[in-house]
C-alpha cells in the first residue's frame, strides 16, 4: 500500500508535465481566438452597439425583420441563445455554486 502510494507520488511530476505539454498548444489556439472574439467591448464600441440595437428596433418596426430567411433566423436565434447563456454563467459566478444556491 505504502509502495503504491510512493510510486504514484513519484509519477505526479511526469503527469503534470504531460498535462502541460498537452494543453499548451490548445491554450495557445484558444487564446489566439479569444483575444479577438471574446474581449469585452472597448468604450469606443459602445455607441456602435447602441446604434446597432436601434437599427434592430427600426428593422422590427418597419417589418423588415419579417423578411429574414429561416436560415438567418436560426443563426440569429443561436446567437441570441448564446448571449442568454452568458447571463446564467454570470449567475453561477454570483451565487458561488454551480447547481443551486448554497444557503
Amino acid at each position, binding site marked *: 500500500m505504502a509502495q503504491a502510494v510512493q510510486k504514484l507520488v513519484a509519477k505526479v511530476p511526469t503527469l503534470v508535465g504531460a498535462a502541460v505539454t498537452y494543453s499548451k498548444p490548445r491554450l495557445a489556439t484558444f487564446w489566439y481566438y479569444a483575444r479577438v*472574439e471574446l474581449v469585452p467591448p472597448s468604450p469606443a464600441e459602445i455607441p456602435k452597439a447602441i446604434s446597432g*440595437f436601434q437599427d434592430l428596433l427600426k428593422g422590427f418596426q418597419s417589418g423588415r425583420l419579417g423578411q429574414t430567411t429561416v436560415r438567418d433566423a436560426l443563426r440569429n436565434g443561436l446567437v441570441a441563445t448564446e448571449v442568454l447563456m452568458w*447571463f446564467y454563467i454570470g*449567475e453561477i459566478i454570483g451565487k*458561488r455554486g454551480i447547481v443551486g444556491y448554497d444557503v
Partner: protein
Amino acid sequence: MVPPVQVSPLIKTARWSALLIGLLYGKQRYDYLKPIAAEERRIEEEEKKLREERERIYKQLSEANSDTILK
C-alpha cells in the same frame, strides 16, 4: 488556421452586459435567500426539540402503561 472573426460590437456588449447582470442577479438572490434559509433552519431546530420532547414523554408514558406479566 481560420482567422478569428470580428464579432459585432452589439453582440459583444450584449454578452458582457448579460454576464454582469447575471452576476448581480445571482449575488442579490443569494443575499436574499440566505437569511430566509437561516430562519427556516432555526425554526426547524426548535420544532425538532419540541417534537423530541413530546416523543420522549409519549415513550415514557407508554412504557409506564404497558406493564404486563408477559414482559
